[in-house]
C-alpha cells in the first residue's frame, strides 16, 4: 500500500509507427489535462500538510524570540531547543498527561460507544430517532462543549456538585480546580464528546454482520455473552481497529477542549503535548521549542500509524 503500483501507460512511441506525431502529442495533452484535475489538491495538501511537517523540523533547530517577527531573524542554534525542552520537567509531565488522557479517553469512549451500539442494534420503537439525536454533542464545536462543561463542573455552583449534594454524595468535588482531579475531569468530558462518534461507526459495523451467524449461534445454544464474544467481536474487528486508530489520531493532539476547560492548569495538571506546543509557540513566542514538542507529537502519531498499517497488512486484506 505504501508504494505506487499503478502501471504506467504504454509508451506512446511504439503505437504511432509512421504516423504524424499527432497521436503522441494528443495523448500528452490528455494526460496534462487529467493531471490538471488532481494537481490543485496535491499542491494544496503539500502546502498545508507536507510543508508544515518539514518546516517544523527546520524550526526546531532555530532560535525564535518575540523579536523574530520584527527582524525576521531566527538563527540556527543546533540542538539547543531540543535539549532545553527535554530538560524541562514540564515536558515529561505533558508527555505523561498526553498518554493518560489518550488511553483513558479511548477506553471510555470505546466501551460506552460499543455498549450503546449493541443497545441500539436491537429493534425498538423510536430507536432510529434516539440514535441520531445522540450525535448532537459531537456536532457542537469542541470549545463550546468545553465551556459548557466548565460551568457544569464548577465547584461551588455547578449543577454536578449540586446534584451530588442532593444525593448526599459530598458535592464539594473540585473537579477542575484541584491538580489531582483536573486530568480525570478532562478525560471524562472528552469521553462524553467521543461517545457518539464511536457509537455510530460501531453501529454501522454491527449492521454488517450477517444475521445467520446469530441464528446459528442461538441454535448452538450459545448464551448472549458467549455470542458477543465469539461472533460479534471477531466480526467487528476491522471496524474496531478503524475506530481506535481514528480515535487515537484525534485524541492525542487535542487542544481546544483542554484550553476551554482548564487552559492547561491548575499547576500544569492538564498540560499535554498539544497545549505545550501552543504555549511555547503562541504564548511565549518561542516557536523553536514549540516545534520540538510538535515533532514529538508527530512522532508518536507516526509510530502508531506504522503499527496500524502493519496490523492491517498481516490481516491480509
Amino acid at each position: 500500500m505504501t508504494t505506487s503500483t499503478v502501471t504506467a501507460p504504454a509508451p506512446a512511441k511504439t503505437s504511432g509507427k509512421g504516423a504524424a506525431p499527432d497521436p503522441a502529442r494528443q495523448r500528452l495533452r490528455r494526460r496534462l489535462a487529467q493531471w490538471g484535475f488532481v494537481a490543485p489538491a496535491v499542491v494544496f495538501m503539500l502546502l498545508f500538510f507536507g510543508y508544515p511537517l518539514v518546516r517544523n523540523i527546520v524550526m526546531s533547530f532555530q532560535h525564535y524570540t518575540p523579536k523574530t517577527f520584527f527582524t525576521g531573524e531566527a538563527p540556527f542554534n543546533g540542538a539547543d531547543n531540543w535539549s532545553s525542552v527535554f530538560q524541562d520537567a514540564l515536558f515529561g509531565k505533558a508527555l505523561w498527561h498526553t498518554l493518560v488522557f489518550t488511553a483513558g479517553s479511548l477506553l471510555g469512549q470505546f466501551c460506552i460507544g460499543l455498549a450503546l451500539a449493541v443497545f441500539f442494534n436491537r429493534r425498538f420503537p423510536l430507536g432510529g430517532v434516539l440514535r441520531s439525536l445522540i450525535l448532537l454533542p459531537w456536532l457542537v464545536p469542541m470549545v463550546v462543549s468545553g465551556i459548557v462543561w466548565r460551568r457544569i463542573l464548577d465547584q461551588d455552583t455547578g449543577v454536578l456538585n449540586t446534584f451530588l449534594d442532593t444525593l448526599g454524595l459530598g458535592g464539594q468535588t473540585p473537579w477542575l480546580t484541584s491538580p489531582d482531579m483536573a486530568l480525570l475531569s478532562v478525560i471524562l468530558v472528552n469521553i462524553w464528546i467521543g461517545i457518539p462518534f464511536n457509537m455510530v461507526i460501531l453501529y454501522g459495523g454491527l449492521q454488517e454482520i450477517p444475521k445467520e451467524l446469530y441464528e446459528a449461534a442461538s441454535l448452538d445454544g450459545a448464551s448472549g455473552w458467549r455470542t458477543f464474544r465469539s461472533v460479534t467481536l471477531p466480526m467487528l474487528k476491522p471496524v474496531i481497529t478503524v475506530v481506535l486508530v481514528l480515535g487515537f489520531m484525534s485524541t492525542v493532539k487535542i487542544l481546544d477542549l483542554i484550553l476551554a476547560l482548564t487552559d492547561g492548569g491548575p499547576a500544569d495538571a492538564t498540560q499535554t503535548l498539544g497545549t505545550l506546543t501552543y504555549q511555547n509557540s503562541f504564548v511565549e513566542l518561542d516557536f523553536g521549542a514549540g516545534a520540538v514538542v510538535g515533532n514529538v507529537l508527530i512522532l508518536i502519531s507516526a509510530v502508531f500509524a506504522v503499527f496500524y498499517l502493519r496490523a492491517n497488512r498481516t490481516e491480509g486484506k
Partner: protein
Amino acid sequence: MAAHTPAASRRRWGSTAAGVLVLGVMLFPLYWMLNTALQPESGLLQVDPVPGSLDLSGFSKAFGDQGGHLLTSLLVSFGAVAICLAVSAPAAYGLARFGLRGSRTIVFGTLITQMVPGIVIANALYNSYVDLGLVNSYFGLMLADASLGIPFSIVLMRSFMVSIPGEVIEAAEIDGAGPVRVFLRVVLPMSRNSLITSGLFAFLFSWSDFMFALTLNTTDDVKPITLGIYQYIGAHVGDWGAVMAASVLSAVPAAILLVLAQKYIAAGITGGSVK
C-alpha cells in the same frame, strides 16, 4: 414473529425507555447550556433546573456582543466549503477515473494527512502567513479551514466516483465532450449526494475550528464565534448567561444540519472513516 406477544412488546418499549434515558444523560449538558442561557440573572450563583420565566436578555446581549463573530464564522465557513469542494471534487474524480501514475500514493498521502496534528500545522503556518501577509485575513483563515475538509472530501467523493459506470462517461466522450465538460455535466450531477455530504462536513469542520482562529489571528479583525466565546469567558467571568446564550447560538447550525441533513451526516461519518 413473536414480537406481537404482550411480553415482547413490553420489552421493546422498555428498550425505548432505556434509550430515552441514555439520550437524556447524553444531551443533558446541551440542555443545561440552554437553561443557563435563559437565566442570565443567576450570574455566578446556582442555576435553577428549569428557567422560571423566559428571560431573553442573555440572548440579546450575546447577539450584541457576538453577532458579528457569528457572521464571520458563516462567511469563513462558506468560503472554506467553496475552496474545499473546488479543490477536492476534481481531484476525487481524477483519482477515481484516470489511472494516473502515482494515484495510489496520492490517496495514501491523503489518508496520512489525518495524522498531522493541527497545532503542528499552525506552528509552521503562522510563520509563512506572517511572510505572506495572510495573518488576520479572511482569505487566510478560509484556506486554513478548507484544509480541514479537503482530505476527508477527497476520500469520500473518490470512493463514490469509483462506482460511476464507465459507460456513462464514455458515452459522453463519444458525443464529443472534453474531460472538463464530462466532469461538470455528467460526473458532478451524479455525485450530488457525496458532494452534499462533503460540503456539510467541510462546513462543520470550519464552523467548529478554534485552533486556526486562535493561532492565525492576532487582532480582532477576523474573529469567528468559537474564538469569540473563548475570549468571552475570559472577559465576562460573572456573566454566564450571555456566554451560554452565545454558545447556544454557535450550536444552532449543528442542530439544524442534524435535523435537515441527518442522512448525509450519518453517511459522512461512516463513509469517511471506513473508506
